[in-house]
């Protein structure tokens, strides 16, 4: 329950930033907040209350936490980092033409 509440709150906070903020860089930050919310949520809901999935020796351990979500999130983090790096590059390019990072100059992100 609390996991879902925190996830939805942070996720919508990021979405709010994308909808409202008047700076493209802040919108990229909003996108990252949304991603962070998803990563947190994935780890939280698949928590089994076990130990970290790294063992000390070859003996079979029991009650490990699920390693698959962690591997998937590592992939997700890299994807998110590349996405924001490229978006920031595009914003640098746009700033070269217009000297501003206001999203309204895109003709409104919704219209056009």
């Amino acid at each position, binding site marked *: 329950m609390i996991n879902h509440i925190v996830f939805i709150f942070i996720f919508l906070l990021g979405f709010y930033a*994308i909808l409202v903020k008047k700076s*493209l860089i802040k*919108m990229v930050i909003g*996108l990252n907040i*949304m*991603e962070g919310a*998803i990563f947190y*949520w*994935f780890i939280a*809901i*698949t928590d089994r209350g076990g130990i970290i999935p790294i063992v000390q020796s070859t003996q079979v351990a029991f009650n490990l936490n699920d390693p*698959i*979500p962690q591997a*998937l999130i590592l*992939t*997700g983090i890299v*994807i998110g980092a*590349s*996405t924001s790096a*490229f*978006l920031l590059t*595009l*914003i640098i*390019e*746009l700033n070269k*033409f*217009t000297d501003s990072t206001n999203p309204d*100059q*895109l*003709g409104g*992100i*919704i*219209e*056009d």
Partner: protein
Amino acid sequence: MNNILIYLVIVPLATAFLIPFVDIFSNKARKILVGFSALLEFSIGIYIIISNYGEITEHTFFLKYYLGNWIPPIGITLSMDMLSLFFSTLISVSLLFIITYSIGFIGHHEGKYYVLLFLIWAAMHGIILTGDIFNLDVFLELMLITSAPLVAFKRNRNGTEAAIKYMFFGAIGGLFIFIGVILVYFNLGTLNFADIAQSFSLLPLFSKKMIIIFFLIGIFIKLGIFPFHFWLSKAHSACPSSISALLSGVIVKVYIYVFIRLFFNVFGFDILRETGLDIIIIVIALTSSILGHVLALSENDIKRMLAYSTVANLGIIVAVLTLNTKLAILAGLLHVMAHLLMKVSLFTATGYLLQFTPSHKLQDLKGVAYKNIILFAGFTLTAAGMIGLPPMIGFASKWHILQAFLDRSFHWGSIIVILGTIIAFFYYIKYIIYGFKTISIGPPERFRLILSVFYRERVVTNIAILFAIAVVVVGVFFKLSYGPIEGAANAVMNPSIYIESILGG
């Protein structure tokens, strides 16, 4: 186990990694590498068809590949059935010719351009071959992130704005798909397509509904279906014409493939019918279609008009596929092929014609037909196909779509198809008439070149004419393509074949 499948992904990927390496030493070696790899990738596809010809004609074709020898559901599985084969062939053929077109069309920053083009090729084959839902997400993001730089390839203000929009909406769509993947893993504990398909119907209804809705929103954002159509026209028109052809003709078809694979084979169509979502999808898609046609009519810019026409056609394809009868899926897949051929043809021809005009505006296209009359005739024929006139492939597919709508007695759909055809007639005929208009006033210097150089004019015109010929020839002999498309439709309609082929030995 057949190793040939993995080479479909590895060859373009390795080429993309090798190009910067080769580029340091010599420009010429890079050109040879690009041409050689494109041919190699194309011939791998042909080899698959030839070596399995008997199975393809009997519609029992199925190849699978366990990466790292991990049997499903533990590792990642690649598979190729008739549906994947159909899409893979379309992609390989169109990309081979788009790369050839690019050799004549793109004259600067070629190194990075081909790197990104080959990465897109690898990503598309990755999406089409994969049998794993998270792997699908990874390759979707790869395709997004490699196509966005090409949208901004012209490095002007318009292109950069378009790329920002494309990237933002693509990334948000990707997040929704990622949430869907998480819900699938949380509920089922597996990521393999066949494994999901086997146990998906056992889930409680609200879990199924949530998963479906998240995937649906994600795919519709990426496809540009109605509430999310606004970014598509700008992104598809701001780039060089070769990239417009790629985005508008090929990449959206890959999203259509994802839609078909997920909602017909993995999640099963029953869940859409149970929740009543199929009617909603059809209504949304038909709205998208009519809206695309109206926006195209109101547009004064030739490339944006073509991009809005893509919105309209995607709406029709999604609507007709969601009818879920055998005829409907056959019609949908036929229109996928038809729209791919015609859009690539129109964009390649437009790319040539726009070299002679100061801008993309309708008024500037005056008299452009006389620059290359054969090519413009091809443009006219393809536009007629887009409208749906008989000898062209567009007629065949539209005829089947109409029949599919009437078959399910879904009259609104057929009315919208006919209405769309009428509107399309008006916006295409406008450009054709302007193209044939002679200039009464003004000296011939009116046609000042924007790009001062044509890198290889003959390659560009030949490819454009070739696609126009393909539109007509495939239109006349479209019955020959019935066999494979029927096999693909069979694969769509019978998800149990897919599940058994992957999990059963």
